[in-house]
């Protein structure tokens, strides 16, 4: 049913001024409603992929196209402004985009509710746990009502329990909102659990060396992680990762 690609890369290459090649010949297309995860060893240029997609960095060669203006970017760190409380942090993006005060207050309140932070509106970031900070960060992006979400290892710094809970929350949002997503991680389990498609990246220079459809239907339950089918797919992704790395 989806016709226009939410994001497409053709022959994207990124060469830094010092001569290192971070990405080489990356072709990639994400359809609307698709959740694509990129797994790869650290330092393989995964984050560069997102920076190019969002326009923060220009590609050295090739083209990247984004099919929508509403792009959410969730960073590795929560990047909350420490002097703003949760409510004011979540309002930041619509504030920067010039949304009237009243409207952005209600938009932010809805997003805060959606990530389960209701009651913490007045808390400053330092009073929040790592997981709650990430929820606030997620809520901040949700205020844009994104059609495309870019996630840069958002849960990488969290403990496993919090991470799995946030995975479930994210899937719930994905099912409810139907955005397209490009999710970067170095966890194979997380990749398979979340996505409709897993891409495997090689070590530097990063290339896409594996492309796996994930057949499991949504909504997914945590038990899915312990089914043989899940294990088998995760095993194949893992093997491909090892191959690309050597």
């Amino acid at each position, binding site marked *: 049913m989806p016709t226009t690609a939410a994001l497409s890369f053709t022959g994207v290459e990124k060469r830094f001024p010092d001569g290192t090649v971070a990405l080489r010949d990356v072709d990639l297309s994400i359809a609307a409603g698709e959740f694509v995860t990129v797994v790869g060893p650290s330092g393989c240029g995964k984050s560069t992929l997102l920076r190019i997609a969002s326009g923060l960095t220009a590609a050295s060669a090739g083209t990247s196209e984004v099919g929508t203006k509403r792009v959410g970017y969730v960073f590795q760190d929560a*990047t909350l402004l420490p002097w703003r409380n949760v409510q004011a942090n979540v309002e930041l*993006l619509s504030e*920067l985009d010039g949304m009237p005060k009243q409207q952005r207050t209600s938009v932010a309140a809805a997003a805060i509710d959606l990530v389960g932070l209701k009651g913490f509106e007045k808390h400053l970031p330092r009073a929040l746990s790592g997981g709650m900070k990430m929820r606030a960060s997620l809520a901040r992006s949700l205020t844009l009502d994104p059609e495309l979400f870019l996630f840069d290892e958002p849960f990488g710094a969290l403990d496993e329990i919090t991470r799995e809970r946030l995975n479930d929350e994210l899937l719930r949002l994905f099912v409810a909102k139907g955005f397209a997503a490009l999710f970067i991680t170095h966890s194979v389990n997380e990749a398979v659990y979340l996505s409709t498609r897993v891409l495997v990246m090689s070590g530097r220079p990063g290339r896409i060396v594996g492309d796996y459809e994930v057949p499991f239907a949504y909504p997914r339950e945590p038990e899915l992680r312990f089914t043989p089918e899940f294990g088998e797919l995760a095993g194949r992704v893992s093997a491909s990762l090892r191959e690309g790395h050597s």
Partner: protein
Amino acid sequence: MSVQDVTSTEKEPTLTGKELAVVVTGEPGPAAATDEPAAVTAGGAPGRGKAFLAALLPPGLVFVAFIGLWYLVSYELLDPDQREILVPPLHEVLQVGFFNHDNLVELLGGLWQTTMVAFVGLLIAVALGLATAVAMSQARWVERSLFPYAVVLQCIPILALVPLIGFWLDFGFSARVVVCVLISLFPIITNTLFGLQSVEPGQQDLFTLHGASRWTRLTKLQFPAALPAVFTGLRISAGLSVVGAVVGDLFFKQGENPGIGSLIGLYLNRLLQQQLFAAIILSSALGVVVFWLFGFLGQRAVGSWHVTSSRDGR
């Protein structure tokens, strides 16, 4: 004999000059400034009295020891004729300096004058320093062209310039203010600049993604992020502005209203040692109060969110 001694050590410029150099170079960046707001942050209800005692007792003991040492030197180490000139005992200082009406009025008048000079000097230094730092943060070339001179400003012994400033500006209020500004400008520039430039890259990206203008970025991201560093600089500069006001005054001496510095010079020349000590105590107290005041203001402004400026959960 001993009078001779005093007048020969009376070359205050070299003395204060060294002290000043120590003060100025002692705290080059925000990292060097320590925050000790233990007494400022509210303690937990049960252990509060105890914590209060623990916070006050050690410095209190040192204070008592210091007073003891003072009397020891005064009465045991010095002959009676030296005593009055070198280290008059504390109670005499208090009696003559503070409990004599005329002397007290003279001292407080000087204090007021010095405070005004320091205040106006600090105000100008803050405005100039913030503006310079903001300009530097906005364009690399501004930073590259100005920063070396900010460092030079920090390195030249301002004291050497003080007589010249007096010549140019007629030894009055404005000359004193200029000395103040020169002495207290640098910490504000460096700390503010450091603060403005130490915004997290991720937060910068966020603003870039939403096409934030320079102004928006400055007011909503850089400046708030810089506030803790700004207050660190303010606190150092506030102390220095008092130093500047006293030093300028000490040099110029002339002028319609004598400040504490002029009084110090006057008492020194007339060997009014009790009053001299009283004046020194008062000017030190001014420096301490100003330092504390800005620490307090900083705590009020950023203490709620800036982690290192208050002890977590205590």
